[in-house]
């Protein structure tokens, strides 16, 4: 283990380390703590310039209620859910199928296709912007939740296929071989043999994709115009324009946008990190 385990240091050093941890954490998360504090403040505090001192009153319910009541925040959150969940289902379906094909079958275009999926995953969004927007307008999908879902699902298929392919590759191939010799059909092998084994990969991708899609701002701006289909990221930006300097409301709104991915991360931490650090250990 590196650095040298702290248990092997002097008692004083151990206490110093344990004392330093929370202090470092508070400094690191100061921006978030400030937002949480501010979302509790009253409008009076904000107007009086009391941003950093102790709040004169705690207005949790009032502020969050005001955000829900005076803005379409509820609609934004619902839209984000309506974009995120179907995208995950669709992109996982596509990439399980494609990743399986690339991992299990030998054919000439295999590596080429694999590399196309990887490369596509890295391209800047701007090179896709004009044509994708144009396509959405001409098919009537502009300014709809469906339009966002289809784009996200297609784009994320690149990353998810890379992930799935590498995961399935690491499974014992003999299982598939012996099933083939038994005469089991190809799709049955995929469905009954491979899919149960890739559950951890599916879980990892689901949480990762949840945060990616939930936090997307660019496509929410480019493919959506009206509030009826606007996800929370773009919605928050538009509210920021209305609530000039009403930091208690902006903070409360920000936290509402931040909570779902943070909760997702906490619930599925192991899978999340496994997905994110793919490739960081071997090779």
């Amino acid at each position, binding site marked *: *283990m*590196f*650095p040298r*385990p*702290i248990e092997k240091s002097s008692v004083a050093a151990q206490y110093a*380390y*344990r004392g330093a941890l929370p202090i470092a954490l508070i400094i690191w*998360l*100061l*921006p978030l703590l*400030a937002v949480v504090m501010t979302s509790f403040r009253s409008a009076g505090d904000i107007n009086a310039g009391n*941003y*950093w001192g102790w709040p004169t009153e705690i207005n949790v319910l009032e502020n969050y209620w005001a955000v829900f009541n005076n803005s379409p925040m509820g609609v934004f959150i619902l839209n984000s859910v309506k974009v995120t969940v179907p995208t995950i289902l669709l992109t996982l379906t*596509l*990439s399980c*199928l*494609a990743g399986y094909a*690339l991992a*299990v*079958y030998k*054919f000439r275009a295999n*590596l080429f*296709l694999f590399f196309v*999926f990887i*490369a*596509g995953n*890295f*391209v*800047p*969004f*701007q*090179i896709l*912007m*004009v*044509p994708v927007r*144009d*396509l959405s307008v001409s098919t009537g999908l502009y300014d709809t939740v469906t339009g966002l879902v*289809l784009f996200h699902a*297609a*784009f994320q*298929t690149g990353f998810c*296929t890379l992930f799935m392919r590498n995961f399935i590759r690491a499974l014992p191939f003999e299982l598939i071989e012996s099933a083939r010799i038994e005469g089991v059909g*190809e*799709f049955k092998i995929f469905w009954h043999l491979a899919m149960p084994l890739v559950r951890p990969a599916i879980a990892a991708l689901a949480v990762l994709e949840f*945060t990616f899609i*939930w*936090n997307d*701002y*660019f496509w929410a*701006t*480019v493919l959506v115009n009206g509030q009826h289909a606007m996800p929370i*990221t773009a919605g928050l*930006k538009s509210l*920021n324009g209305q609530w000039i300097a009403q930091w208690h409301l902006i903070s409360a709104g*920000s936290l509402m946008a*931040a909570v779902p991915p943070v909760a997702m991360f906490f619930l599925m931490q192991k899978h999340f*990190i496994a997905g994110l650090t793919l490739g*960081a*250990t*071997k090779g």
Partner: protein
Amino acid sequence: MSAGSPNTTLSLRSRRLALAPWLFLTPAILMFVIYVIAPIFQSIWVSFYEWDGLGDKVWVGFANYIELVDDDRFYTSLKNNFIWLVLYMLAVPAGLFIALFLNQKVPGMRLYKSLFFFPFVISQVVVGLVFSWFYDPSNGIIALIFAIWDGSPPAILADERFVTYGIIAAGLWPQVAYCMILYLTGLNNVSPDQIEAGWLDGAKGWRMLWYVVLPQLRPATFIAVVVTVIGALRSFDLISIMTQGGPYGSSNVLAYYMFETALSEYGYRMGYGAAIAVVLFLIMMVYIMVFLRRMYVQEKEGG
């Protein structure tokens, strides 16, 4: 039993094996081609036109690219992208530093690690809003610090000299967290035997880190550099939230300048925007190629 039957079953089976991957791949390829591959070529094609997104396209040849050569705003954006790229790299050593700090086994460490990772999980829109407020010269935290010495705080986001650095600092916060988690995972897999051997050879501290640990962390470093480069070149959200490229275009980057040209009140110049996107794409292609090359070598070695 005829002698031909094993042959026919074999060829049937091999034909099925040849067809199966394409059945599995078709839906994904179709979606990927429609939304990712084809648009790249369409954008290159649009960059040779003058087009407002609605009316007829007018062929202008290389005129958009020639215009770029004389466009000061383009150079400002390019220069800022370069600053982003260089300063964003700080996330890699900073992430390593925090990972080393946290790589201990004391009670509650798991929770500490997750909490340090928080900034990466939240939306950049939220990060942008929080930092805008921090930088606010009338009541942000910067103002508070300056008030201690009765100084007047700089208006970071309204000052052409500081604005880009201010936004990069906000972007570094989640990026450092990302690099940290990559290194924590990497450190978990560092071989204890080699560390032990290092101790016996009298290697300590920096020497141990440099000669024994870092070489083993190479895969983590590679991924950290790749995601940081991509992150720097993709920077869009923070600029859109914090300054919209201002003041006077001084905090623009290619990704945002492209958007502004093609889709904002500054005019709907799709062709010119596409030309900017093509430049950004070509810059990114360099890094994509480096990454693919490495993947290719790995594939060949791994079999």
